[in-house]
């Protein structure tokens, strides 16, 4: 097996730096230590995947990056900006530079496709004409120009996620976060959405961080990856390296499951 190097050393190393990130939820008298000290460095232009089982803290981690969750401890910086130090106002501004897409799409049902995509521009105070032009540009990019006047209620899951992507890209962000964006889609649609993400990563030099519980997604579009287990990163590196030579138990288990349930034998207890 020849280790393949996926990352090219570049002047953009460590574009996103996360260090000592901790997050605890304390609903009522309970206490959940969800992130227990996460360190990550992600390069500009990377497609970085975080994989982990349900409840590992993936969503919490990605949501800390645009501070939809407030981290308790640790630092997150993007380029020269320390996200964790931004005031509310600065944060609103900065969020325009970080797009996010969700598993449940979270489109506004009251607005058309074009209206959903123009939303970020409206709240950023962009002029009407410029907004309209930008909306058409972006809809063209995600191949939905002919659906501009449709309502989300008229779209398929894949189309809805394209609108989600278009909305996330409206303000020309540097980073796109993806929280299980393809997990509600069938395999074929997943593939087409991933192809879209791939192409915008290349065309727009966008850094993408995506979290998923599906290794296929990581294998298909990520260059580097990390494995999150119970609030800690247990393994990270180029995707090929992790797949071909997993070090952590979680990564090994993931790969075994990924290779197919056949690896666990038949329902009658027979081995393979």
């Amino acid at each position: 097996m020849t280790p393949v190097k996926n990352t090219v050393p570049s002047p953009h190393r460590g574009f996103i730096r996360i260090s000592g990130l901790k997050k605890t939820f304390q609903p009522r008298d309970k206490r959940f230590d969800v992130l227990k000290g996460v360190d990550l460095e992600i390069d500009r232009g990377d497609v970085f995947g975080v994989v982990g089982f349900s409840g590992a803290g993936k969503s919490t981690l990605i949501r800390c990056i645009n501070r939809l969750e407030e981290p308790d401890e640790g630092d997150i910086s993007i380029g020269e900006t320390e996200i964790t130090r931004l005031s509310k106002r600065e944060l609103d501004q900065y969020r325009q530079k970080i797009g996010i897409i969700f598993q449940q799409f979270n489109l506004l049902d009251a607005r058309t496709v074009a209206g959903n995509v123009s939303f970020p521009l409206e709240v950023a105070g962009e002029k009407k004409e410029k907004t309209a032009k930008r909306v058409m540009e972006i809809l063209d990019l995600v191949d939905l120009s002919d659906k501009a006047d449709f309502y989300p209620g008229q779209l398929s899951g894949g189309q809805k996620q394209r609108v989600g992507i278009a909305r996330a890209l409206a303000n020309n962000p540097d980073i796109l976060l993806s929280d299980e964006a393809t997990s509600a889609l069938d395999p074929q649609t997943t593939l087409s959405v991933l192809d879209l993400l791939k192409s915008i990563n290349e065309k727009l030099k966008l850094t993408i961080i995506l979290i998923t519980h599906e290794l296929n997604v990581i294998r298909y579009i990520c260059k580097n990856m990390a494995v999150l287990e119970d609030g800690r990163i247990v393994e990270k590196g180029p995707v090929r390296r992790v797949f071909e030579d997993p070090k952590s138990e979680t990564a090994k288990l993931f790969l075994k499951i990924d290779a197919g349930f056949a690896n666990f034998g038949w329902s009658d207890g027979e081995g393979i």
Partner: protein
Amino acid sequence: MNKTTFIETLQSAFSGKTWAIVTPAIYETLYMVFFTTILTAFFGMLLGIFLVVTDRDGIYPSPRFNALLGSVVNGFRSLPSMIVIILTLPLSRMIIGISYGPKACIIALAVTCVPMFGRLVESSILEVSKGKIEAARSVGAKNRDIVLKVLLPEALPSLIRSFTIAVIAIVSTTALAGTLGAGGLGDVAVRFGYSRFKTDVLLAAVLVMIVLVQAVQFAGNGLSKFVLKKRHLI
């Protein structure tokens, strides 16, 4: 009441003589319902928005203010409308100088109906998924954007249904206030139908109120459905 007298009463209920009494009362009722509705819509919406926004899990958490507002609302809601109207009639004297008649009652009616509509607005807005709010947050939307461009438009079909319920409640509360000197259909129904045993007038007033409520419900349902259809949600 035997069969013939019932039919006679029915005929009498549709006679010109009866309607000479009922028609002015319809105008008074519509007048009170209209202005009470405007006041209730405005202040009830504000109240509902404040209740949602300042909640512990809201977009501008302010638990103490929320608890205070909540208990004031509950206080009003725990009293029968009749009592609230009696309590607030002196308020009308303070604001518009008189404490009787349709105008005075509009204020008392609004005070009775705002807490109710406020709670309805609150529950309508709470139906908007957290995910939509987060999506808006993630592109830098401020609280004002979230209220005006996310919560209200997304909740619109439900808000219309809540509003319909509120208007119907206003119609019946207005009838109740009529018995306390506000005039209108309630006043006529009680003065003629109850005190003077004029069942024909009572019947006519009741019919008008039923038609009024049906019309409001029909319009509300239709409008809510129209919005849902437009958005392809049904």
